[in-house]
Structure formats: structure tokens, C-alpha cells
């Protein structure tokens, strides 16, 4: 069972019910659950969407798009049924927040899904969990069954005229399926290859119907927004970055864990105070701020960095999915880069040339390089390759692979050079470079 942590700086909104037994429906209700959806049932779809816009909630999957705006793109009239799709295919290395939501507070996802359905006029929602989360799927399935039993789902929910159904779905191991259109493909029983856009899912989505796809954390936040009021929620964060988010602190910190902090929280403070500093009293070398796809930051770059979408973007990286990976000074960045690209090589769907070939090529080059068989021109070649993938791939996975690679080479060129001329990796234990990668 994942260990729960806490810190005085936390503002517990989403994680409010973690560890409280709220996976049981009675307890969830006891803790104020299903009140927001009742509130929304009494309101119009426009009101719901306006509240969402006012909350300044931005998508927690990584792109940070305004949730209220996304919902407003769904056409009011549609010949085909509309759908709500909850993306619980949490797969970005460094990210494990939805894990806790499904484990401790599955009803918040259900409640958020119903509210989203009311907002766009959908009668069916899907909660898609990555295949590895089988034990969480059972928890969510139980929660859904309980909600049906109470009349919160099904025909005439909460005694109103409204109908809403939820189907749970499992993936089977594919990072790419976290991309929204690939997720729809997977849910339709196909290979997780993204779709050509436009049309966008809000217009032509699942089964051809208008669809909104939101990250599980985003959806779990929705009931809280209506519980505390959009304005109050927005006030928690920084301008245009409403609320809190679950930061997954991992790597070389003393106290790794998932912490709920206000948007804009200082990264240095997060590492040193919330996370208890670098493990074993070592020095910070670098930090990956938002999951493995986000460009690495140097210690000097995080001095005054507030963790919201805009500030991290300005610093040349991305807030991404909230996975903060802390790297100490005894870590080989070349190996870290190799492990990162190996992941993207493994997960590339293979659809487009630059991602399929680029990740494969980068992995091979970095592997050779790390083993001490690199040449000086390799360093430029790796960067050239990464830069020539950027912005040219079919979907963002190519960028997700290229961006961090380019940043590693750019910011740690010296460390790459230290691997040249047949020299073993300076950080290797027992003097032998590690070569095992998937």
C-alpha cells in the first residue's frame, strides 16, 4: 500500500479524504461527497461550465488547457451521443497521483464524471485505468456499483429526470494511450494510435460522438470546486492557475511522496522543506519538474521558481503531470538520459517516422555513448537528432522524447564529454557502465 505523507504547507483539497476510508460510499457521503453533483443537477449546463471557467482549473494531464474552455467546445446539439472520458492511464514516469485518487477517493472521480456529463449533455462516461492498476480497477468498479445501487448512476439519478451511466475500462500497457485520441482508439478496441486532428474530440470523439477527455485528477477536482465555490478554489493558486495540485515528489529526496500544494508553490522549497532535502545530505544536481518528458532544470534555475504552468514554461520546461524527479550529484546524467529515451523508444507507437526512428536511434546512440564508445561528434548528433524530431511528429510523444534529450545534452555537455575517449562512466559503481535497459 503506497505510503501517505503530509506536510504543513499542504492545502488538502483533492487529497482531503485520502486515508479516511472514503472508498466506501457511506464514508464518502459522510465527508460531504455527492453534494456537488446535487448542486449541479439544479443548475444549467452553462452555469456549470462558467463556474469551471471561473475556477481557472487547468488540465492536470500535462498540457494545462483550461478545463472549462474544453467543456465549452462541445456542441450543444449533436446527432450522435456525447461522452465523458476520464483518462486514468497514468503512465508518465514520475507520476503516481491518480494512483492515490483511485485508491482513496474513487467516488470523487465518479462524481466529477457525472458533473462533466451534466455540463456537456452526455449520458455515458468512461473511466479508463491503465492495465497495471488492476487492484485499483476493482476499487473503482466497486465504487461504481455502489453508486448505481444508491441511484446515483443509472436512470433518473438522485431522483431527477437525468440519466447517467459509467463504464470502467482497463488498458493493457501502453504509455501512448495517455494521448487523448489514442485513448479513444484504445477504448474502441484498437491499437493506441492517435487520430488525425482536426476534428478534435470535442466535436468528433469516441464512437464519432462529441467527447471530453479529462485527466483523472482534473475530474476528481471538479466536485471540490463546486463544494468550495469556483472563486475560492481559484484564489488558492496563482493567477490563471487555479487551485492545488498533487505533486509527486520522487528520486533523491529524503521524504518522497505525493503532496498537495497550491499552484505556484516554490520548487526549491518543495524539494528542501516538503521533501526534506536531498537524501544523505548530498547536493542537488538537477530536477525534472513535471514528469520524464519535461526538460531538466538546473539548481540555479529553480531558485525562485513557482510551480505553475506559466512560470515553469517561462523557465524553459513544463509543469506537465506533476511528477517532480529530484536528481543528486552522484547520478550520471548520460545514464539518466539513456533511461529516459529507452522508455520513449519502448513506448513509441511507431506510427510516424521521426518518433519511431528517432527514439530508436537516440537510444542506440546513448547506449553506445554511455558504454564508453562515443565520439565527440556523437554529442552533436544526439542533439541534432532530438532537435529534428521536435515539432514534427504525429503526436506529442515525439516531443516528449526529444525535449528532455535535447535539454540533457545542452545543459550537461561537460558530463557527456567526460564519457569520451573510452573513459568509463565517471559515476559507475564498480567502474563498469551499466548497460541494462529494457
Amino acid at each position: 500500500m503506497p505510503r501517505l505523507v503530509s506536510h504543513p504547507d499542504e492545502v488538502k483539497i483533492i487529497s482531503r479524504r485520502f486515508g479516511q476510508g472514503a472508498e466506501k460510499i457511506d464514508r464518502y457521503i459522510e465527508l460531504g461527497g455527492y453534494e456537488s453533483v446535487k448542486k449541479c443537477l439544479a443548475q444549467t449546463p452553462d452555469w456549470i461550465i462558467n463556474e469551471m471557467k471561473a475556477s481557472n482549473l487547468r488540465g492536470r494531464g500535462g498540457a494545462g488547457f483550461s478545463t472549462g474552455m474544453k467543456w465549452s467546445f462541445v456542441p450543444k446539439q449533436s446527432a450522435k451521443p456525447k461522452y465523458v472520458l476520464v483518462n486514468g492511464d497514468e503512465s508518465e514516469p514520475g507520476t503516481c497521483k491518480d494512483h492515490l485518487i483511485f485508491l482513496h477517493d474513487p467516488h470523487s472521480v465518479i462524481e466529477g464524471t457525472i458533473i462533466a456529463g451534466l455540463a456537456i449533455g452526455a449520458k455515458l462516461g468512461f473511466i479508463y485505468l491503465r492495465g497495471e492498476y488492476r487492484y485499483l480497477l476493482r476499487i473503482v468498479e466497486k465504487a461504481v456499483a455502489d453508486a448505481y445501487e444508491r441511484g446515483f448512476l443509472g436512470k433518473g439519478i438522485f431522483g431527477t429526470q437525468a440519466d447517467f451511466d459509467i463504464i470502467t475500462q482497463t488498458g493493457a500497457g501502453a504509455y501512448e494511450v495517455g494521448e487523448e485520441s489514442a485513448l479513444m482508439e484504445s477504448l474502441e478496441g484498437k491499437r493506441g494510435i492517435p487520430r488525425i486532428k482536426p476534428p478534435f474530440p470535442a466535436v468528433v470523439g469516441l464512437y464519432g460522438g462529441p467527447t471530453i477527455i479529462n485527466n483523472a485528477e482534473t475530474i476528481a477536482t471538479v466536485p471540490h470546486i463546486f463544494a468550495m465555490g469556483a472563486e475560492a478554489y481559484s484564489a488558492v493558486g496563482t493567477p490563471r492557475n487555479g487551485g492545488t495540485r498533487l505533486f509527486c515528489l520522487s528520486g533523491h529526496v529524503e521524504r518522497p511522496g505525493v503532496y498537495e500544494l497550491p499552484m505556484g508553490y516554490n520548487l526549491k522549497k518543495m524539494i528542501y522543506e516538503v521533501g526534506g532535502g536531498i537524501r544523505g545530505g548530498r547536493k542537488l544536481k538537477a530536477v525534472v519538474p513535471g514528469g520524464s518528458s519535461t526538460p531538466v532544470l538546473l539548481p540555479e534555475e529553480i531558485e525562485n521558481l513557482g510551480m505553475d504552468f506559466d512560470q515553469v514554461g517561462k523557465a524553459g520546461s513544463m509543469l506537465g503531470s506533476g511528477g517532480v524527479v529530484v536528481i543528486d550529484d552522484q547520478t550520471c546524467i548520460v545514464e539518466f538520459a539513456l533511461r529516459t529515451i529507452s522508455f520513449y523508444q519502448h513506448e513509441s507507437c511507431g506510427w510516424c517516422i521521426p518518433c519511431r526512428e528517432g527514439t530508436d536511434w537516440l537510444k542506440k546512440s546513448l547506449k553506445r555513448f554511455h558504454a564508453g564508445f562515443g565520439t565527440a561528434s556523437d554529442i552533436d548528433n544526439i542533439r541534432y537528432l532530438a532537435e529534428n524530431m521536435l515539432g514534427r511528429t504525429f503526436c506529442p510523444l515525439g516531443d516528449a522524447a526529444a525535449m528532455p534529450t535535447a535539454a540533457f545534452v545542452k545543459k550537461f555537455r561537460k558530463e557527456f564529454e567526460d564519457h569520451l575517449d573510452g573513459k568509463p562512466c565517471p559515476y559507475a559503481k564498480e567502474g563498469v557502465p551499466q548497460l541494462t535497459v529494457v
Partner: protein
Amino acid sequence: MSPKNMKEEPLTIFSPQLSARFDALVQKYPVKRSALIPMLLYAQDEVGYLSDAVVADVARRIGITELDVRSVASYYSMLRFKPAGKYNIQVCTNICCMLRGGYELFDRFREELGVEHKGITPDGLFSLEEVECIGACSWAPAIQVNYDFHDELDPDRVPGILDSYRSQAKAEGEAHA
């Protein structure tokens, strides 16, 4: 009439429980094919891997070609076309686990089991796999044994984990006997 077109009662290779579950699953979605991936996963849980017979049975239930089923199944890394051990040990070595000793953990499993990546122990009890991120980054290093998570591990806990599964298997064996 060619044998291809012969009408016969569909035979299934699955247990009555799973078969009934599949019957419900294909009715659940707006489109039958949405049941494909869950079905493959559940079929694998029961049969151990996606044998030709599993592929054929699932294809028939959904009404798509076997090629379609293989094409989809081979995309997803949790689905396999070869048997694994009774307990499939999946060690995450992705960045967060790597930083906290994922490779050391993996090496310890290799030593203890005497198998490499994707290897199966001679008794068929364990298989070992180095896997990508399993979503336990803040509790690294972590592994999954089949669907069970074990987190915040260190190599010294490896023998204990293996023993617990060995006794579990033994208990199951005795219960069957």
C-alpha cells in the same frame, strides 16, 4: 458447403465463469469491439498467455479477424503470446525507481531466480521482467508480481518476497490436493 461456413455451436476454451463474463462484456459497450482489450487481459489471466486458441475465441466473440486481434494485442506490452511464470515479477527500472535502486533490485531478482529479462524459472513458478514505469514513482523502487504492488523495496527484501509467493503456491497446491 465448405467447412468454413458450417454452422455449429460455438465452442469456447474459457471457463464457464469467464465465458459468462465475456458474454456480458460484449454487450456492455456501445460498440462490441470496445470489449477487446479487457477480454484479452482477462483471457490471459486465465490461460496464462494469448494462445492461438485464445486469439481465435476472442476474435469470434467480437466478430473481427484473428489478424485484427493480433494486431491490437501485440501493441500492448502487458499482453503476451508466450507463457510466463505463475508469478510474473515485473521490476520497474524507469527513472524514479532507477534513482532509488531499481537496477540493484532487478539484479538481485536475477541472481535469486537465475533467470534474465523475460526468463522463466525451470519450475515455471516465476518469470522475471524489467518493465517501464508502473505508477509508483514516489514509493520507489517498486515491483509488481502479477497485479500486486510491492513498493519502497531494497534488494534484501527480495528473498522474503519470493518465499511468500512460494508458500502461497504451495498452499494452493495443497488446497487442490
